[in-house]
């Protein structure tokens, strides 16, 4: 074949020279250990290659043009993936080749990566008010599942109490992941209010053998449960850890869980400067106090600051590397591999840009928009906000009491160029607003629902 632009040595003359330099007859010599029986005796049956970059752009572009992005519509989708503004500087930094194409370099050629990730840990540490934060794991699901297994290893106990509404996908991941060592107990929330039931939590704790009480703040229903600060004490009295998942962008206005007794805090950094990308851009954070017992149970990498051989110079490296599977294979804690480092750098740049005031303002705006949307939409005939009494952040439940189902309402909204919320049941759907929504956007949703939700 012709030389391929991605493959320098595909030039036939170069190949001949290289083979001659090695003393090989053909590339076949190098496959001598691949038995004939398992050799593919035909070419791979794939579509013909798109020869030129122009043709590739045309082909992929034609496929992508079949999509309508959430930016082209008015979207009220959240439910675990959030549409926030991504500052241009975040894009500029993470698209630099030096960061985008680097991998597992050592501190001596990749000092910048180590510093940027240590700074990410540190910025998250300030947001969470915790002294230990991991390099990003894959996503918030993994972070929650691992946080619970860490609690299990620390306490040596079996049962995990999930006490707020937890999104189905997140629950599915947790159940699969803890299966060998733990039983998941769902403590039902009050169906009338959507709130955790502290009496039921205490009753389960009394049953003993509880490794962790787990709450999400906000919950899968978008509720910031007033019971959260009161759950740490009974958990600790029962010898369990308090593990809280949180949405980091809320913490400009909302108390970090460490302040009300959480021992391990986890979540997803997607809201901090990462595009939605069809749900594909995530990073999980896990944070604890700076105690050897806790640090020793992290499976993921923890970058630390250390002096170098030159006075006053900051160096970086792995903290307590021997706990990882990289060091000791199956004797390590869970496993570690490539995860989501660059997304951590993105989140770091986001936090650095926002600063304390920016984080406060964005969280306040989302709180206010959510409250306005709840109140405004509940005024629409045929629309109820069943848990409207509780404080919400971003996500909230709407219940449609007219003749149309929640799914049919979504269909009708789509005809008006609006992406309605995630359908939860025949009557309920989870809607979401963020700082990108204006009052007019919310009013437009209300006016459209006025027409179609009767």
């Amino acid at each position, binding site marked *: 074949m012709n030389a*391929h632009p991605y493959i320098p*040595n595909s030039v036939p003359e170069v190949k001949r020279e*290289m*083979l001659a*330099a*090695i003393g090989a007859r053909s590339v076949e010599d*190098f496959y*001598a250990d691949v*038995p004939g029986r*398992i050799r*593919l005796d035909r070419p791979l049956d794939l579509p013909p290659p798109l020869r030129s970059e122009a043709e*590739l752009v045309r082909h992929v572009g034609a*496929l*992508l043009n079949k*999509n309508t992005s959430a930016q*082209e519509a008015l979207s009220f989708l959240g439910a675990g993936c959030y549409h926030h503004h991504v500052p241009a500087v975040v894009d*500029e930094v993470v698209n630099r080749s030096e960061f985008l*194409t680097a991998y597992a*370099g050592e501190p*001596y050629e990749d*000092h*910048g990566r180590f510093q940027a*990730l*240590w700074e990410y840990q540190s910025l998250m540490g300030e947001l969470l008010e915790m002294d230990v934060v991991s390099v990003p794991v894959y*996503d918030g699901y993994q972070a929650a599942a691992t946080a619970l297994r860490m609690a299990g290893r620390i306490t040596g106990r079996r049962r995990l109490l999930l006490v707020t509404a937890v999104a189905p996908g997140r629950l*599915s991941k947790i*159940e*699969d992941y803890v*299966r*060998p*060592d733990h039983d998941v107990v769902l403590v039902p929330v009050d169906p009338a209010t959507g709130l955790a039931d502290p009496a039921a939590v205490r009753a389960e704790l009394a049953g003993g053998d509880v490794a962790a009480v787990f709450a999400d703040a906000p919950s899968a229903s978008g509720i910031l449960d*007033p019971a*959260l600060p009161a759950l740490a004490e009974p958990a600790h009295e029962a010898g369990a850890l308090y593990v809280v998942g949180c949405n980091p962008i809320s913490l400009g206005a*909302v108390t970090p869980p460490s302040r009300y007794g959480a021992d391990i805090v986890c979540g*997803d950094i997607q809201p901090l400067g990462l595009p*939605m990308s*069809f*749900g*594909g851009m995530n990073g999980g954070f896990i944070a604890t106090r700076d105690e*050897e017992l806790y640090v020793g149970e992290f499976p993921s990498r923890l970058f630390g600051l*250390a002096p170098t051989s030159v006075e006053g110079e900051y*160096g970086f*490296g792995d903290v307590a590397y021997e706990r990882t599977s990289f060091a000791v*294979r*199956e004797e*390590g804690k869970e*496993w570690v591999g490539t995860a*989501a*480092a660059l997304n951590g750098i993105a989140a770091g*740049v986001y936090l*650095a840009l*926002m*600063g*304390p*005031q*920016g984080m406060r303002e964005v969280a306040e*705006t989302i*709180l206010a928009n959510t409250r306005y949307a709840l109140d405004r939409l509940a005024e629409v005939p045929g629309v109820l906000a069943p848990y409207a009494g509780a404080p919400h952040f971003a996500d909230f439940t709407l219940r449609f009491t007219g003749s149309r189902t929640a799914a049919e309402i*979504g269909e009708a909204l789509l005809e008006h160029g609006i992406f309605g919320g995630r359908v939860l049941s025949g009557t309920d759907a989870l809607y979401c607003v963020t*700082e990108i929504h204006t009052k007019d956007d919310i009013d437009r949703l209300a006016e459209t629902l006025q027409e179609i939700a009767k």
Partner: protein
Amino acid sequence: MKTGPTPSPLTPADAEIGPKPPLRRFHQARWDEPLLFELGTPGERGVLPPLSQVPADVVLPDGLRRAAPPALPELSQPQVLRHYLRLSQENLGADFNVDVGQGTCTMKYSPKVNDRFVRDPKVAGLHPLQDERTVQGVLEIMYRLEGLLKEISGMDRFSLQPGAGSAAIYTNVAMIRAYFAARGEAETRDEVITTIFSHPSNAACAKTAGFKVITLYPDADGYPDIEALRRAVGPRTAALLITNPEDTGLFNPRIEEFVRIVHEAGGLCAYDQANANGILGITRARDTGFDLCHFNLHKTFSTPHACGGPAAGACGVSAELAPYLPTPTVEFDGTRYRLDDDRPESIGKIRPFYGVVPNLVRAYAWIMSLGGAGLREAAEVAVLNNNYLMAKVLQIRGASVPYAPGRPRVEQVRYSWEKLAEETGVHSEDIGVRAADFGTHYWTSHHPYIVPEPMTLEPTESYSRAELDEYAAILAEVAREAYEDPETVRTAPHRSTVHRAREDVLDDPATWAVTWRAYRRKVLGG
């Protein structure tokens, strides 16, 4: 301290491997960039978010209103940009160097055009819960990518959901567990067999999922020990997790027999295809009898490694295991693409939503730009480059390739500097640090060091002959220094951003500092 180029008269042996032009002069950027927390001034702002246009001051319950804003630094926008761009310059991406020293990780060129696709709002601006009619393009790409991977591997179905290679290994182990649970053998089949030259995650994921791990060591020739396998298998065997070629670069010629032995014992076989780059179009997982496999899309199919992710994994399975794939799968009815969540035997969710979609788009574009013949060309050139580089490295004093002398290697080679270390006291790790002074990256290998003083090089198809010559010349120069001037190597780096950090500080609970908060408390005292 040496800071300039180190020209030296070439010996005839050096001339063989010497680059033209000679070793380039390099110095990593050094900005003495402060920590972010040492920058800024109270009141500075980096970006202003929208303020609410509706009544604000939402009342939060007691204990849920943050008392004081987070103690983040306060910086203006140009300060943030300059800080991070200086850090970026203190980082050596694959786009800048002959990045063949991260063996086992397949560092290859990620075409820039593919990055353009994923920045487009038609990818970046999609919400995963949009109506399927509004995301037919991205679903079609996922469906087509599955089809391409099926042909490349021979498998019947794929999930594109895992977040990276290790997540894919875990996904395969979770499916193996579900398969035996469905057959009522969950309690009895509790052992997984792997090899010491497979990625640590094979052992670690199996353990995490509740299996006992049995590790096979190499035989005298470096191939996985088939007699050890025969001793290990039995009624407790759930699966074999194996890489082939292994990280030594050796392709196991008895791989079919391995699969047969495990199948006869009632176990499943999962092929870790982290090292697939050298065998694309040559041999396929399913044709060897494997029941499951996984690809690291960021490695084999060229998505950027991004400082250690986001990556993407893909799990392929036989029809028998397809019911256990993570949910949802992407289906096509001849007219419309849709997500299928109705999969009662599925292991459920492995990560949020459907996968690291930007990397799925990149991988699709990469395969479409090569086609079947191009994939095979990539494999063959990668293997040619590898054996060419091996011939060069074997000319360097102190370097050797353990096991199976004279046998070819596939896409990488695990070398040993044992002789050099014995003769000079310079270790493989020192060579890696010194290599950074020449503008390139080199990492030793995964632990444990079964091969003493290891170095694993994986040139892939992305580097030119001149670049391979350059890399070999850097190694030759460092080896020469080890013999003639070992202090220069032992005290490296000399042309880096920083000097060697004190490892003891990082291992001591009293001094480690994972965040600025901890550093402030432990070191600065407040």
